[in-house]
C-alpha cells in the first residue's frame, strides 16, 4: 500500500514546515513554511481519500488550497506593510508584542 509513503511524505513536509516557522527569521520564508504545513495536510487528506475511494478528501484539499491562497494574500500584504514601515521583514525585529 502506498499509504505509508504518502503519510511519510506528509510528515516530512510537516516537519520541514514547522522547522521553518520556528527557525526562520524572514517573514516570507515563514509564510512559505506555513504553506508547506498546509500542503502536508493536503497530502494526508488525499492519501486517505484515495484509500477510502471517496472524493471527499480531494474536495477538502481543494478547499484548503483556496484558504491557503487567501492566507498568503493577507500574509504578504502584512509583510509588505512591515517592509514599508521598517525597511525589513525580519521577524526578530518585531517585538512590540513583548509583554
Amino acid at each position, binding site marked *: 500500500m502506498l499509504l505509508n509513503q504518502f503519510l511519510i511524505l506528509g510528515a516530512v513536509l510537516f516537519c520541514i514546515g514547522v522547522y521553518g516557522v520556528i527557525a*526562520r*527569521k524572514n517573514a516570507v520564508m515563514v509564510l512559505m513554511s506555513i504553506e508547506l504545513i498546509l500542503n502536508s495536510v493536503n497530502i494526508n487528506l488525499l492519501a486517505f481519500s484515495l484509500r477510502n475511494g471517496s472524493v471527499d478528501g480531494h474536495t477538502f484539499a481543494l478547499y484548503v488550497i483556496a484558504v491557503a491562497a487567501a492566507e498568503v494574500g493577507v500574509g504578504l500584504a502584512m509583510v509588505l506593510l512591515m517592509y514599508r514601515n521598517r525597511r525589513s521583514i525580519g521577524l526578530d525585529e518585531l517585538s512590540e508584542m513583548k509583554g
Partner: protein
Amino acid sequence: MLAAATEMTETVLSSGWFLENAWIIPIIPAISFALIIFFGKRMPKKGSEFGVASMLGALVFSAGAAYQWIQRVNGAAEGAYIAPIVKTWTWWQNDGVSLGIGQHVDGLTVTILLVVAFISSLVQIYSLEYLRGDRRYTHFFASLTLFSAGMLNMVVAENMIQLILGWEIMGLCSFMLIGHWWEEGANSRAALKAFFTTRTGDIGLLTGTAVLYFAANDWTTKTLGVSGFSIRGLSSWALSGDPSSAAITVGAVALFIAAIGKSGQFPLHTWLPDAMAGPTPVSSLLHSSTMVVAGVFLVARVYPVFFEGLDILGSGANFIVIIGGITIVIAALLAFVQTDIKKVLAYSTVSQLGYMMMGLGAGAWLPAVFHIFTHAFFKACLFLGAGSISHSSSHHSFEMKKDMGGLRKFMPITFTTWIISTLALCGVFPFSGFFSKDEIIDNVGHNGYNVFMIVGLTGAFLTAAYMTRATYLTFFGSPRGASAGEHHEEEGHGAHASHDDHAHDTHGHDAHASHDDHASHGPHESGWLITAPLIILATLALSSGFLNAAPFGHSWENFKKWVEPSAEVINPTGIAYVTGGAGEARISSDEPTEPVVGEEAQSGAPLAAASGEEDHSSEEGHHKSDCGTKTPVDGVCVAPQLNHAPFKWSKAGLSMLIVFAGMLSSWILCVQLYERKNKKLVGLTERNKALGAGYKFLVNKYYLDALYENVIVRSIAHPIARGAYWINQNILDGIVNGAGTSAKTVAGWVYRNVDQKLVDGAVNGSGNAAQAAGGALQPVQSGKVNMYGALLFGSAAIGALILVIINT
C-alpha cells in the same frame, strides 16, 4: 481491441512519429521555461537562447506533425473520416471519476500548432532586438515561453480539463506580459483589467465544462468508453441526439461566454485595446495572432456542442453570430478615433475575431478556421511593423498623429511589409485575407444569414477605411514629432497612454547614451532581427491564402481537404479506442460528398458497449442528428454536416468594390483632413452637434468602461461595503453596547453585594498569586513570532500525544 479493430478497417490511415508524439510539443517550451527561470540569468544571452531554441524545436515538431497529417489525409479516400490521433494517460482518478491528459490531434490541431509555434518563434527572434537591455529581459522570455507552452497544451488537449489548464496558463502569462513594465501605473492597471475581464468569462468555461460533463458523461462512458470531458466524446455526444436541449444549450452558452472573454468579443472586448500597454512583441503574439484566438479555437474545437446547443443553421440568428456581427462593426468604428497605432490594430483584431465568430456562428467552420490561420500572419506582421516604427523611428512612441508620418522613405522594408499585410487584412485579391474573409462573408450569406452578410460587408468597408487612415498617418504626409527628429521632453512621455519607454528608465547609463545616439539619427530602418520576421510574415500574408484558394477550383482547396473534419457516420469503436490512429473502424458511406449524408451506419462490428442500442432503439431514429437527416442508430459522428458556398466572381467582385470604395473614400478624407487642412473638414466634430456626439461616444468607447467601472463594480462593491458598515455600526455595535450596558448593571450589583463583602479578602491573596504567576509567564510573551510558533506547535504536539495516549 486494437488488433480487432484493425481487421475490420477498410483503409489503414498512415501515421507517423511526429503525429503520435504531438504531446511533446507543449512539453518543450514548458521545460525551457523552467530552464530560463532557474538558469536564465547566468546564461550568456540571459535565457533568451532557451526560449528561441525551444520555440524552434516546437516549430520543427509541429511542422513534422503537419506534414504527417497531410500524408494521412492524402492517403485516405475523399471525404472519408480521418480519425484523430488520440493518446491519453490517466492524470487523476478516484471513486470512478477519472481525468486524462494526452493529445487529440486532428487537422484543426496541427493548423493551430503550426501557427502558434511559427509566430512564437518569429516573435522571440524579434524580441531579441526589441527588448535588448530591458530590465526584466530574462523574465520576459520566461513568460513568453510559458505562454507558448500553455497555448500549445490547449491546442493538443485531449479533454476539457487539459484545455482549461492551457487556457489559464495563457491568462496568467498575458497578465504578466501586459504588466511587464509595471512601474507605470497604467500598465499594471491594464494588466489587471485584462486578467479580471477574461476571468469573468472564465467562469463560463468552468460552468460550461461542468454542465457538459454531467450531461454527457453517462452517454460517453457507455457508448464510447471515454469520460464526459473528452473532446471527441463531447463532439459525438452533441450530435448523437442524446443530449437534452436545456443541458446542451446551457453548456454551449457558458462556454461561449468564456470565448467572449478570451477572444475580446462584445461586450467583454474592452480589455484587449488596453492590453496594448504590454511590449509590442507581446501585442503581436498574444493579443493579435494567438492567445485571443483561443476563444475561437474553443468554439471550433467542440463545434458540435455549439452547433446543437445554439441551433446553428437553424431558424433565425443565434447567439454566436449575433455577438460576432456586433463585434465586427463596433470594433471597426472604434478604430477610427484612435491616434495610437497599436490601438487601431487592437480594434482591428477585435473586429477580425468578430469575423471568425460570425463565421463559426453561421456554420462557416472552415473559412473561420482558415481566417485564424491567415489572420495570424498578417496581424503579427502589422504589429511587428508598428513595433519596428516605434523602435527605430518614432522614439518609442505609438502616436500616429503626433510622432509619425512620411516614414515610407525612411523605412522601406517596414513600409512594404505593412502595405502587404494591410492589403491582406482588407481582403484584397490575391492577398491571404481575401481567401479567408471573403469566404466567411460568402458562406454566411449562403447559409441564409443575409443580415450578417451585410454586416460582414460593412465591416470590410470599415476595415479598408481605418487601415487606410492608419497607413496614411504613419507612412504618408510629412514627418511629425519624434519621427521628424524632435526629442520629447521627459514630462511629455507621461502624456502617451501606451508608450514603450523601456529604453528610458531601464537601460543603464551606457545603454542610454547609445540609445540617444541612435535616436539622433532620426528615423531609419530597423536591424535585421526585426526586419527578417517582418519579411517572412509578409511573404506568408501574401501567399498563405493560396492554401485554400477557392476561386481557382476544387483542386486548390487543400486546406479544406486537410482540416475539415468529415461528417461521416462511424462506428463508436472508431473513436473510442484510437490510440495509434491506424485502427479505426470506418463504416463505408455511399455518398459522402452529398450535402446530406443519409445512409444509416452499417455496423460491421459489435459496439464497444452493448448499451449503444438502449440509447437509440427507444427513439427509433426520430431525433435530429446533424450528421445527416437520419439518426446514426448505432454509429456516431464527430462533426456536423456543413455546406460550402460555391465561389462566384460576382460576389467576390462586389466585396472587392466595397473594399476599394472604403480605401478611396478614406484616402480622400485623410488627404483633405491632414494634408490640405480643408476648412470644411477640420474641426467638423466640434461644429456639427450630431457628429460631435458620435465622436464623443466613440472616444469614450461606447461608455462600456464607464459602465463596468462606475456602474457595475460600484453597484456591487459599494452596497456590500455600505451594508457591512451598517451591520458593523448598528448590529455589532448594538450587541457590544448592549453587552456593555448589561455588564455594567450586573457589575454594579456584584460590586455592592459580592465584591465588597465577600471577595475583598480573597482579592489581596489572589492578587499576589497572579503577580507571581504573571512574573513567571512574562518571558513567554517575548513578542517573538517564532517563539509563539514554537509554543503553538509544541502544545499541539503535547495535545496530540495526550489524545493518542487516551485513545489507546
